[in-house]
């Protein structure tokens, strides 16, 4: 009798729970964890929350490049100092990233690191000497489950539907919580006025090189935007373009590949199929959208 009663209560309890959202029969067929997992489509609650608040990607021109989830593959063995520097230079130029000498106030969107710093958990001393010296291009990973977006108190940093993590420079209050949250050191803060202007509104000294791209004010955080402004015009990210051009000249496979991760025929998917690729700090669960072939 005791067992029967217990069994009855158990079934009654589960059916009450299930009745709220799905037919009782359905809920009884699987355990609650499985059920919840199915409801959430296999994503964590945090990921669901992050993707609920999508902002419109803006007006799309006919030539705009679109994707379900943008991703990049960095083929490190195809890189050299020259290519890495070309990528950094073009990115910083078109995005008006100021050149600040003091490393404490530096602003970086894309830059080269050595293996031991780019992949600190996967470093050991017997790694091929050449690999140790190769420039690992690092940037914002546009994480699928981005910790920066999770912590931002104003949604000034947010995730677009196509996976790009962007910054609203007019909303950022400069609390720098996103910098503490980013496990990749991809974010920079404007500690000083990046492009100082005189009283008459003219730039003092150097002028920002790119009139098409807005400059930032002091007190906001910035980072790589996967060239969202270029994608809108039908162009691939500037670093990818620069790297592919140079690689072609040097007769190498493209060092940077960009494309839609959810399109099985995209270039990134093809490269990921034919090469073994890793991501930075996968154990943290942020699910970076930048892959590395070493």
């Amino acid at each position, binding site marked *: 009798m005791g067992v029967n009663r217990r069994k009855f209560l158990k079934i009654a309890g589960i059916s009450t729970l299930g009745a709220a959202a799905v037919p009782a029969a359905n809920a009884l067929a699987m355990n609650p964890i499985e059920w919840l997992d199915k409801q959430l489509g296999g994503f964590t609650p945090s990921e669901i929350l992050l993707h609920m608040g999508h902002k419109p990607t803006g007006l799309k021109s006919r030539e705009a490049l679109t994707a379900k989830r943008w991703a990049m593959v960095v083929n490190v063995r195809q890189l050299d100092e020259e290519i890495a520097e070309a990528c950094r230079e073009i990115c910083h130029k078109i995005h008006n990233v100021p050149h600040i000498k003091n490393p404490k106030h530096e602003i970086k969107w894309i830059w080269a690191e050595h293996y031991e710093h780019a992949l*600190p958990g996967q470093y050991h001393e017997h790694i091929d000497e050449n690999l140790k010296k190769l420039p690992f291009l690092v940037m914002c990973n546009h994480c699928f489950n981005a910790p920066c977006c999770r912590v931002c108190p104003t949604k*000034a940093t947010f995730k677009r539907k196509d996976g790009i993590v962007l910054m609203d420079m007019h909303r950022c209050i400069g609390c720098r919580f996103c910098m503490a949250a980013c496990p*990749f050191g991809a974010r920079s*803060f404007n500690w000083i006025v990046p492009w100082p202007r005189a009283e008459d509104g003219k730039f003092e000294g150097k002028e920002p090189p790119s009139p098409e791209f807005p400059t930032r004010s*002091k007190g906001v955080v910035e980072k790589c935007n996967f060239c969202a402004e270029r994608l809108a015009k039908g162009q691939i990210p500037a670093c990818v373009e620069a790297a592919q051009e140079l690689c072609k000249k040097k007769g190498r496979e493209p060092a940077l590949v960009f494309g839609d991760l959810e399109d099985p025929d995209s270039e990134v998917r093809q490269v990921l199929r034919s090469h073994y690729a890793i991501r930075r700090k996968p154990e943290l669960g942020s699910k970076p959208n930048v892959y590395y072939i070493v």
Partner: protein
Amino acid sequence: MLEKAFIGERKYWILVACLLGIMGVGFIMWLWQFRVGLGITGMSRDVSWGFYIGQFTYLVGVAAAGVMVVLPYYIHHYKAFGRITVLAEFMAIGAVSMCLLFILVDLGNPVRAINVILHPTPNSILFWDMIVLNGYLFLNVFIGWNVLTAERKGSPPPGWIKPFIYLSIPWAISIHTVTAFLYAGLPGRGFWLTAVMAPRFLASAFCAGPALLILLCVIVRKTTKFDPGKEQIQTLGSIVTYALILNVFLFVCELFTVFYSQIPGHMHHFHYLFFGHEGHGNHLIPLMWFAFACMTAAIILLVPSVTRRNEGILTVACVLVLIGTWIDKGLGLVVGGFVPNPLGKITEYWPTVPEALITLGVWATGFLIISLLYKVATSVKVEVGAGEA
């Protein structure tokens, strides 16, 4: 009642003038920071929070500690604390005000601070911290003022204030828990990524807060006609002792997990703070050792009842507790979490002079608030004839 803050002796006005002077210097420095940017501080791309956020974290603890007086009085009916609940609440008001100011001076765009309310984001812990801190400030102003007004009229506090008082107890715990969650949920920062963070925060709060309250009580007794009472100070001393031991114990728990597991991402920060990363020294090493020496010395002074009951020794121990916890939480906690950076590199941090002056200015503001409120409280206590303990 507020008029009592404007009647005082020469000494009181000298104190007020000094605090106003420090505030002025801090304010001028802040204007400079507002114009030039946070680049005038020692913070950097790698150590992106520093002294300001450290002070904020420390003072949230001091504010939360008001509950150590409120709880025994209202829940356990420990009558002796009735004399000092108002002092604890007014100290909390000063501390929370400093917290809010430290957040403001740390913002890159303080004029946009209101965005946190205009675009509420419940998945951000900072959003919740804003709510709990402002709520706690409101609760303490509201409760403290009403209870003191009732005392002045010689009547018991109105019945409707009780729910607010009971609410303020879990609320005090919440402010420091939420503040710990700012740190303890960040995936890439091994130093902070520990479930013991919130308990440790509370333990250090419940020793630092009452320690400051003891010092304030001693000052109040010396400078006013109101005596907070020997028993009250002694009970606070016991609370400091328990909480301090708990704080050090939780720190040892943390050390065990970090060093026995040998996980580099967690160990490197402790190495950096206490021994120097890969043998490279820094400013923080002697300070961190000094902090734990202070706390150990305080435990030695506080545990034997012979020494603890000696008010002079108790006062010294409280100063040691304040210094120790302040270095640990106001400096080591924040900087230690950022160094080494996520790429394993070292960027040193040390506050600059303007940064220190702005910090001092905020502290002076908090102490001015506490001084004015204490002036009111002690005047009322003396007026109703509760001066002698």
